[in-house]
């Protein structure tokens, strides 16, 4: 018995001329909350549908709990799914929807009733047990779909952008709920989304996909603070991207030539002179009226100052690029548009990425 619930081994899937998955490899441990993140068409949904059994890979092998399931139909896998549109059966009540999977497992009537009560109490749906899907709200439907998928006690729960249909306020609340449900059930969650905010809030681990390949696989902190590619740096969070040439690299620190000035940041390897990009998070760029003492200092003219509620955001035009910087909302320094300002950030806040 292996500890990996999912093992996808060199799986390729093509739709006509489009390669949805290109030699994909991944392992997922029991109890992990893994989010697959990426733009539409990146292969995240195809991965999910292959795990559910709705698509068959062109090549490669899929293992679930150590068993080769590559050719197993959906009804014979210990995997359940929460669909994007929930797919609750409209002619069945919440109770009947949840009972559906349990009946097909061949459970007895009393065991089914006990399990329904258990799962619906846990998700606080008992008062709605005899309602039909069109008689409950969107958030309740989402929880009913979750209850139906969790009831048969699957090894792996697939969630296909299940928060997309909810409004922003409800979505934030459900994100926290989902995370705590996952923690208390100890189930392995395989979550698919294109919303980086959702991914950062809920996941133990995020897999960023692009063009059928995995760009980066790591914890939310890894991806946000230590992106390995330009795509990841730009896709997750807001960032300033500078374009320059690599200088010398040593001990994980590198120099970048940018607009006749040498900036220092974190760099892995590379040959001096090669074109590179550097990513600096907005919140790490500090604005000040006088020249600051940071490792990297740039001067420019303030174009715009925006109040965002929890912070102030500044748009500063420098000779090379327009940079974005932030300051806490209680920073009372008066910055006037058109005035000369200084921007500064430290070596650890800039990541140099090879193109």
């Amino acid at each position, binding site marked *: 018995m292996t500890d990996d619930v999912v093992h996808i081994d060199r799986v390729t899937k093509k739709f006509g001329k489009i390669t949805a998955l290109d030699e994909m490899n991944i392992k997922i441990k029991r109890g992990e909350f893994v989010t697959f993140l990426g733009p539409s068409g990146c292969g995240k949904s195809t991965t999910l549908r292959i795990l559910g059994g709705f698509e068959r890979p062109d090549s490669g092998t899929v293992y679930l709990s150590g068993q080769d399931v590559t050719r197993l139909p959906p*009804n014979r896998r210990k995997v359940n799914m929460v669909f994007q549109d929930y*797919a609750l*059966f409209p*002619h069945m009540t919440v109770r009947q929807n949840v009972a559906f999977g349990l009946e097909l497992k061949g459970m007895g009537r009393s065991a089914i009733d006990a399990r329904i009560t258990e799962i619906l109490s846990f998700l606080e749906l008992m008062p709605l047990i005899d309602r039909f899907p069109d008689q409950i709200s969107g958030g309740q439907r989402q929880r009913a779909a979750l209850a139906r998928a969790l009831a048969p006690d699957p090894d792996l729960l697939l969630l296909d952008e299940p928060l997309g249909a909810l409004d922003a306020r409800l979505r934030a609340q459900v994100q926290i709920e989902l995370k705590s449900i996952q923690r208390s059930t100890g189930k392995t969650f395989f979550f698919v989304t294109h919303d980086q905010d959702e991914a950062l809030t809920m996941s133990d681990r995020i897999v960023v996909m692009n063009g059928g390949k995995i760009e980066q696989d790591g914890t939310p902190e890894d991806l946000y603070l230590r992106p390995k590619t330009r795509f990841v740096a730009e896709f997750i969070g807001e960032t300033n991207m500078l374009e320059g040439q690599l200088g010398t690299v040593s001990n994980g620190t590198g120099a970048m030539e940018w607009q006749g000035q040498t900036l220092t940041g974190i760099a892995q390897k590379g040959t001096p002179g090669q074109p590179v990009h550097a990513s600096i998070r907005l919140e790490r760029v500090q604005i000040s009226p006088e020249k600051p003492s940071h490792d990297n200092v740039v001067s420019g003219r303030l174009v715009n100052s925006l109040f965002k509620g929890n912070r102030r955001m500044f748009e500063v035009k420098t000779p090379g690029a327009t940079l974005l910087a932030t300051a806490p909302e209680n920073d009372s320094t008066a910055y006037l548009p058109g005035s000369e300002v200084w921007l500064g950030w430290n070596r650890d806040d800039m990541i140099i990425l090879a193109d």
Partner: protein
Amino acid sequence: MTRHTRLFMSMAYWGFAIYLFLPITIMIAMSFKDSKFIGFPIRSWTTDWYGQAIANGEFVSATGYSLLVAVVSTAISMVMGTWLAVLLARKSFWGRGVVFALTMLPAVVPGIISAISFRIYIRLIELDPGMVAIIFGHAVHNVPFVALVVGARLGTMPRSHTEAAQDLGADPLIAFLRVTVPYLKPAMVGGAVFSLLLSFDDFVRSFFLGSYEPTLPVLLFSKLRSGMSPEINAISTLVLIVTAILGLWAERSMRRMNKG
């Protein structure tokens, strides 16, 4: 819209309504007239014609025969029509256009042509004219209507419903019976009622494919040849009321369930 066009539109509408309902109204009125002679004025009223029609064994047995034919042919066309709708719902397969054309053909072939060709065909396969032949003819004629109504409903069903059923452990047959069929139910009810009415109302196929025992429309036709009678008016009025109620009920329940 100007006042004049609005006036014209409403006059046209009422003109159409009168054109549609006047003959039916006269027929109903005559069925209550206490005289064998059809025409105005009506001096006294009676319900005797209804009593006579119901007491007349010929009408009763023809109605029963028509109902039997309608029910059996509908059962056949429901199975065939639903099966074809499911087959055609698949996005693409080799020969889909041909299957679609063949499915719809019986709906567009003129009734008389289809009746004559069936008549030739049953002779060829040595099937005697009679109930089996009529049921066969009606069933084929009704398949496209069932397939169209059921297919339209099937087109609105999200793919995720059957996937969810399979995901929860249902094999394709159980998924079809427990999830797809309930979803299609309003359309199937509507298709069945429509098919029943088409069969019950059919004259040409029943006439060409029948033996000595007449269906109700065939009996009415043969009675007419010996002259109009208030008894025919009475039986027609009864048929009108029953079919109108059935049709309206089916239409209403289809509309209500389609919303869900």
